[in-house]
């Protein structure tokens, strides 16, 4: 292993700038002549816009412009799009209502964009925004997921009868129903997957600048995928031709999915900076983030499992209603369909699965991918149902899992729901997790807690997720409008240092370190001489960005492939320089050597030689700079078992997580320190969903959890420290042997926590978030 190479917990290269206040986030960007945008948003969930009078606002101090949907339409700026098709059971594509960046004629959720005020200062823009006079005609609102598609509900979009976006059945219903007819036992569970607001700590922002000389727009934006932003803004919104639009995602303060999407504000800022020929900056405040960021989850589901007399799963039936909000966000349609139903097999051999997903519109903020995206919903449903099955069969939750696990020798394993799992050793992860959690000692601990009047519970969750989001062929078949490969360029400079350009984007994951580790391992260049560059369409080749735990599993492999090309080219150059046959050149630890001799050149010398080709023969090309694209053959399938132990105070309903153990299979770890950090963060995201976070709209569609005063984010004193370990397997189709780790915790934790609480209380189920009030009520009813 190279020093600082694969497997080393290298301290992060990016940390110094973040620790000294030298990060460069979008709101930190300030340019001469900058103006500030502030959006006028609908206070109503559903209303007709009779008129907008901007005259008083336009005359307000410092105002440069007040723009509305009419201005946008006049300039031919297209509506926001959703990029993935899901075919409904009537054979028609999903219903896609028009989604203008500034409302035209109607508003459909609280926070919907009605107008933008652009002024010399933010305070002036806010002052003027209050003077925009809007005549709204309020309509009844649809706010509930469960009832949105009922016939008596107000219709939101003309093109979507019964507020249905799609109804998407998957699987052999007749075959599944037949198994249920004759099953030994049927376990059932109704549950809600609570709506979450993703809440990266950096609010979204956009800063646009137009160069009238080059006719180029530069848009700095809080994005996880600058090239995808550029493509959509250009091809679908007609903001500017791709080559005249530069999108930069500078330092981005967390994403978790919510910064994948192209939002109204970003498009409006890009358009306004050219229209006004002034730089325009917009930064969301936190209330706006609650109102208008895409939200996550929000399912109402019924799950049923048919079992034989040994507790083997024979068939599963799932009925889900998924709330997509008022409009379709960029990738929203795929989240409760392909990213959800295709994970319903989990770690088990259940041979038959039937799922029906009804996706509905409501007068709430759009819902799209959030850390895990569909996979947490699938895992929560399945892992809760498995515990109900265990209870119904009188089996230990660990034992029923053992009886149903896909055996190690069955990999690669074709599930009944499309996915073919790459590798896994589910029993190994379970047993290791049980050991780490001292599962056998639980009964004694529960007894001791009881003596103090406390209720102890323990809960398992054995999850599988599909990561490394690609391959293009698979996502294309499913209806994605894009391919999902990744790109890399590895460039030596003449002085021997290296710039690595990746199409992925780092917003906390530490790519600048992990990817440098790959390169130092492969090319032997000291890590301090390697710089990883990402996030700027003017610097890097086209790339698909970062989401779905794909950066290392897809982007990392592209980097490795570019390095391989450099080694091949380096052999040619070294052969020429060392006057040897190319076939005799060997490469190891940064040196090209003539086999069996002491004649050698370091890769830095080869790089210099490549740029000073004074005597190159015909056919030997100068330069030392290679790019590569990688499109994998399959997703990767991280998996693991998490064990949560809680202590519940039945008098107050307070839940303390006293121990949390996670054993995951992420394949090979490049930087264990970073991986462990990803696991910790994911677990707390999941614990937040399970115990604290719940986005609530009232019946009128008013968001009543629109600040950190009302929406409970997990804080340091809500959670414990964690025990993290690994049970790795080797995914055969991934050249680096890696799987992805960013979402695992958020997927594994919610069912582990709720299983533990249900266990403690002795109840069948408690919905998330299990707040003290909800737990207290459950404890009272159980007692």
């Amino acid at each position, binding site marked *: 292993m190279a020093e600082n190479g694969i497997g080393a917990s290298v*301290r*992060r290269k*990016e*940390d*110094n*700038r*973040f*620790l*000294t*206040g*030298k*990060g460069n*986030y979008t*709101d*930190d960007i*300030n340019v001469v002549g900058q103006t500030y945008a502030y959006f006028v948003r609908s206070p109503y969930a559903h209303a007709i816009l009779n008129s907008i009078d901007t005259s008083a606002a336009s005359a307000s101090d410092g105002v440069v412009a007040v723009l509305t949907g009419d201005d946008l339409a006049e300039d031919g700026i297209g509506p926001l799009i959703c990029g993935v098709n899901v075919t409904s059971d009537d054979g028609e594509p999903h219903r896609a209502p028009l989604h203008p960046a500034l409302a035209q004629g109607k508003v459909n959720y609280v926070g919907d964009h009605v107008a933008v005020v652009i002024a010399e200062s933010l*305070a002036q823009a806010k002052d003027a925004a209050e003077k925009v006079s809007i005549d709204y005609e309020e309509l009844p609102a649809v706010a509930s997921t469960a009832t949105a598609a009922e016939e008596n509900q107000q219709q939101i979009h003309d093109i979507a009868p019964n507020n249905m976006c799609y109804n998407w059945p998957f699987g052999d219903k007749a075959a599944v129903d037949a198994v249920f007819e004759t099953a030994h036992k049927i376990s059932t569970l109704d549950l809600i997957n609570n709506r979450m607001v993703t*809440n*990266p*700590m*950096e*609010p979204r922002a956009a800063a646009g600048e137009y160069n009238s000389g080059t006719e180029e727009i530069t848009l700095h934006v809080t994005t996880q995928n600058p090239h995808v932003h550029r493509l959509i803004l250009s091809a679908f919104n007609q903001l500017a031709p791709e080559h005249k639009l530069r999108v930069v995602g500078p*330092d*981005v*303060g*967390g994403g*978790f999915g919510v910064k994948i999407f192209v939002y109204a504000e970003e498009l409006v800022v890009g358009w306004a900076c050219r229209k006004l020929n002034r730089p325009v900056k917009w930064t969301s*405040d*936190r*209330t706006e983030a609650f109102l208008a960021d895409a939200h996550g989850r929000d399912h109402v589901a019924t799950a049923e499992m048919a079992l034989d007399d040994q507790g083997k799963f024979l068939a599963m039936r799932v009925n889900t209603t998924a709330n997509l909000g008022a409009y379709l966000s960029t990738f929203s349609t795929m989240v409760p369909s392909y990213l959800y139903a295709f994970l319903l097999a989990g770690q088990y051999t259940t041979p038959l699965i039937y799922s029906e997903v009804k996706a509905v519109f409501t007068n709430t903020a759009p819902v799209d991918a959030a850390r895990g995206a569909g996979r947490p919903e699938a895992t929560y449903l399945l892992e809760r149902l498995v515990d109900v099955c265990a209870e119904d069969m009188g089996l230990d939750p660990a034992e029923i899992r053992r009886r149903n696990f896909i055996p190690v020798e069955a990999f690669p394993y074709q599930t009944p729901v499309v996915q073919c799992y790459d590798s896994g050793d589910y029993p190994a992860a379970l047993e290791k997790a049980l050991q780490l959690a001292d599962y056998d000692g639980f009964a004694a601990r529960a007894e001791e807690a009881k003596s103090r009047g406390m209720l102890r519970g323990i809960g398992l969750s054995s999850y599988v997720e599909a990561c490394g989001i690609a391959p293009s062929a698979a996502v294309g078949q499913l209806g994605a409008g894009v391919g999902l490969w990744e790109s890399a360029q590895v460039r030596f400079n003449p002085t021997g240092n290296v710039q690595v350009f990746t199409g992925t984007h780092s*917003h*906390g*994951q*530490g790519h600048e370190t992990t990817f440098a580790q790959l390169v130092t391992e492969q090319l032997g260049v000291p890590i301090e001489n390697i710089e990883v560059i990402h996030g700027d369409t003017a610097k890097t080749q086209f790339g698909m960005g970062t989401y779905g735990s794909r950066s290392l599993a897809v982007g990392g492999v592209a980097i490795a492939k570019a390095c391989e090309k450099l080694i091949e080219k380096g052999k040619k150059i070294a052969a020429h320089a060392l006057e040897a046959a190319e076939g005799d050149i060997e490469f190891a630890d940064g040196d090209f050597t003539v086999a069996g001799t002491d004649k050698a050149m370091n890769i830095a010398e080869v790089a210099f030689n490549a740029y000073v080709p004074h005597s190159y023969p015909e056919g030997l090309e100068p330069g030392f700079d290679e790019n590569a694209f990688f499109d994998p053959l399959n997703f990767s399938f991280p998996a693991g078992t998490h064990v949560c132990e809680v202590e519940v105070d039945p008098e107050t309903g307070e839940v303390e997580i006293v121990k949390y153990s996670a054993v995951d299979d992420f394949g090979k770890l490049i930087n264990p*320190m*970073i991986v*462990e*950090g990803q*696991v*910790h*963060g*994911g*677990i*707390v*995201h999941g614990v937040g969903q399970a115990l604290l976070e719940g986005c609530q709209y009232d019946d009128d569609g008013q968001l009543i959890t629109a*600040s*950190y*005063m009302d929406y409970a*984010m*997990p*804080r*340091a*004193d809500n*959670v414990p*420290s*964690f025990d993290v370990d690994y049970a790795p397997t080797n995914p055969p189709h991934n050249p680096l042997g890696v799987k992805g780790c960013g979402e695992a*915790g958020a997927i594994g934790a919610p069912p582990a926590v709720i299983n533990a609480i249900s266990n403690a209380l002795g109840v069948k189920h408690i919905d998330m978030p299990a707040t003290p009030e909800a737990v207290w009520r459950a404890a009272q009813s159980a007692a």
Partner: protein
Amino acid sequence: MQTISMNINGVSVSGEVEDRTLLVQFLRENLRLTGTHVGCDTSQCGACVVHVDGVSVKSCTILAVQSDGCEVVTIEGLATGSHLHPMQQAFKDNHGLQCGFCTPGMVMSAIDIVNRNGCDVDEATVRKELEGNICRCTGYHNIVKSVQAGAKNMGG
């Protein structure tokens, strides 16, 4: 508009501000000290924590005019040249940050926690005292480790 002056990171500065200007706005907009961040509008998240006259303050909760004549230290004022403050170094050594956005506030709060609780501050105290700083990335595990390690480093 009022003219205010204060000492920020050892440098005397003055500027013209509106009465309604918050200290964080003065730092970020007037002085371009953009290391201090704004993560919410209800004084909950703690991304904007700075030290005013030696104690931690959420710079979104006080007006710039209230800081007139004060000594203010921001995240930019901690390191000496390329030599990180012991707390900054502890965050780096213990992977106490991911996206970096909450980090300046975390580090400023952490130093204040150690100043008030000493170098042997225990995990429970650190967790309780960090209640006013929200992080979405790290799950706090490594932040708590960092604060305890930084506390030891600060003790020399």
